[in-house]
């Protein structure tokens, strides 16, 4: 559905995306996560042919992103937090105007979305709250049953109820539609993404299925028999190691029960206790971000 190969975008010497290679499977809900400034929006704008890549290539719906035209855009629903909507248009006119652009527009779907989102058709877009504006944009992007839904930080700043409502309506379109969503809000991603890619300073740190990701990350807490110095050389997969007396904590990014236990024993000898806890995606993200920061600082 989306494929990139060494995709690069430079702005006056600053590299916003560096050699990004991705493959978004059809029917997936693919989350592109990363801290602010990681290059998520730049990636999406490049995929949508809003900006041109400096190097590499990207394919969207089987078409080179540089050649993405009206035919492909008619099958893509795009909503971004920064999108400038025609504020003077009343919601009703806005939806009616969009309807004329899409041959596959479905009035029944729209009616359902309008009802579900409780959209005020007679009010200008500029007079709506941010949440309502996102709802209007989303309604205008879902009513033609797009094959690909691209969302650039769509839920930031929205209250939980609105967010849940929007996520639900997007998930209703899957698996017929593929969803590509960027976010730095990990809680919301965790609830519905099937795949995740982590972007940091324009570089792809990892990309994998959500289940596999949560499976391989564990927070490890070791209790030693007696206090000992933390070894200097630890495996690269052990992120953010910390010591407090006889307790040592780190995040194992390649957890495998037997192998990890052997490695601990090899490093620390006999230990009193080893506890491996599952961690939420938010903690995985924080551990990765922290580790990346440490490696940059050192």
């Amino acid at each position, binding site marked *: 559905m989306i494929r990139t190969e060494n995709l690069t975008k430079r702005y006056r010497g600053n590299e916003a995306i560096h050699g990004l290679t991705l493959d978004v499977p059809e029917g997936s809900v693919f989350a592109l996560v990363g801290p602010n400034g990681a290059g998520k929006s730049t990636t999406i704008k490049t995929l949508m042919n*809003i900006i041109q890549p400096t190097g590499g290539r990207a394919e969207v719906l089987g078409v080179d992103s540089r050649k993405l035209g009206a035919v492909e855009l008619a099958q*893509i629903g*795009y909503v971004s937090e920064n*999108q*400038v909507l025609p504020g003077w248009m009343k919601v009703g006119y806005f939806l009616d105007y969009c309807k004329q*652009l899409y041959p596959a527009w479905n009035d029944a779907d729209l009616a359902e979305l309008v009802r579900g989102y409780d959209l005020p058709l007679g009010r200008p877009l500029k007079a709506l709250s941010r949440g309502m504006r996102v709802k209007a944009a989303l309604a205008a992007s879902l009513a033609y049953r797009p094959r690909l839904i691209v969302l650039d930080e769509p839920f930031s700043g929205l209250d939980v109820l609105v967010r849940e409502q929007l996520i639900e309506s997007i998930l209703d379109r899957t698996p017929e539609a593929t969803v590509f969503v960027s976010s730095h809000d990990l809680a919301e991603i965790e609830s519905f993404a099937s795949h995740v890619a982590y972007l940091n300073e324009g570089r792809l740190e990892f990309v994998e299925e959500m289940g596999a990701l949560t499976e391989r990350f564990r927070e490890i807490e070791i209790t030693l028999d007696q206090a000992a110095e933390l070894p200097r050389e630890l495996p690269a997969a052990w992120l953010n190691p910390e010591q407090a007396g006889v307790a040592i904590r780190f995040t194992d990014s390649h957890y495998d029960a037997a192998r990890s236990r052997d490695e601990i024993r090899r490093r620390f000898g006999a230990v009193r206790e080893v506890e491996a806890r599952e961690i939420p995606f938010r903690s995985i993200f924080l551990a990765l971000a922290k580790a990346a920061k440490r490696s940059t600082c050192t």
Partner: protein
Amino acid sequence: MHLVLLTLLKDARRLWPAVAIALALLALLARTDRWRADPMIGATEGWLNLLLPMAWACLIALAVLEEPLTGDRHFWLTRPHRWPALLAAKVLFAVLFVHLPAMLADAYILASRGFSPIAYLPQLAEKQLLLAAAITLPAMALASLVGSFTHFMLLLFAVAAAALFVGGGFRSMPLWMRPPDHLRSDLTILVAGIAAIAIVWLQYRRRKVSVSRVAAIAAALCTGTLFGYVPETFDYRLRAALHPAPALSLRIEQRPLEPQRVVGTLRRDTVAIPVALSGVPAGALCHIGAASIGLRAPDGQSYHNIPFPAPNQYDKVLFAGRVYRFPYDSDDGSLWLTLDFPRSVYEKLKNQHARVGGQMVVTFYRKGETTWMPLNRQVFASGVGLCSAAIREDQWTAGRVKVLCESPRDLPQTTRVTLAIPQIGREWHQRLRDFGNPTTGPHWAWLSPLDRANTFFNISDPRTRLYQYYMEVPLEHVDQAKIGITPEILNGYTMVNFDFPDVPLNRYHVEPQTNR
């Protein structure tokens, strides 16, 4: 077509207040123009001639900026618009709300002034092309390069200021003395129009903002340079190449100074050198055009002329020179090369022998057919247009005979007007356009579909005048006057180079008009 109409209707729905303002300004201008029987325009029409193009430019920019071509956050970018449909919608908007109303207004003015709009359809269409090249396309191009209307307005004012700065010359010249300078302005508009088309195409096709901005800056520099810094002689050189006339030379002629013919300039010292042209075929008629003149003193100091300095700059000009025939309206008057200096400059030079050289333009013409008409009538003068003559009374004189000609085509650069009273065997001669425009503020009626020109013959009333000035028409005979309109048809141009290496300036000195 569906998308074109969709976008057009959306823009019209959004921009109807701006459209209404532009239409109101156009209606006001058309009404003012329709009643004007004079080439001079009033302040209202002058300002309307400035405001209306600005309003059109803004209207077009607003339409373009409904789907801005710069920036990466606009809603429309990710919607299935096809660029040709989007561009067509904007062009259609300009045609429907700028060009069509403008053409209808022009047709209304022509019909009101006695011309058939159908007969002059090519001229009306040509004017719309001019508007497109000068306003619509550049406005579209500018708007396609900016992200907001505020930026567009700032850019528009910058471009307008630059245009005023570059094109600010020639204001002080009597109209008929102005060089026939259409070529240079036409070329400028052509370059601007082509550059605008390229930028608009590039932006709608590819949205290559940086490349387009560089192209726009290059085009602006190119048009500015073309208009502002290409010498007037370029126009003449091209005309001379296209319409060659016999080669001529200029020589100093030994003849006495005729003080009644060559008048010293107020508060300046004038050197009037009697000159003559050699090589003019017998019976050929010619005008002397603009000249560029240089003067080099023996000490190496050089001066270059400003042929027609602006009145408020006159005292600052070190050297003004020109070649002209006296009397102006004669075919066989004597030629004078005059050099005007401030007293301080002349004092330094007066006892020296200077080198004077330069280049001047001679235009050859033939007289067209003369059309005669009585006073208070309107006739179609062949080769000119619709002409009328009537007595106009005013508070300062005993009245004047005003001759007005107008045409949807360009009036000839020079047209002779003769007032003849056969009963007393006398004739008076003038030229159309020999009265400048003294109005303050904008006074260029460039949006008018009619080229208008007039001249006046002063009338003397023996009841209030003790003596009659020879240039004035006696009131008691004016009812018997008939007016002859004779166009001069330009048919050749020659550039004449001259070089007088040893000119004793004080020998040709003319005393200033007043004591200092």
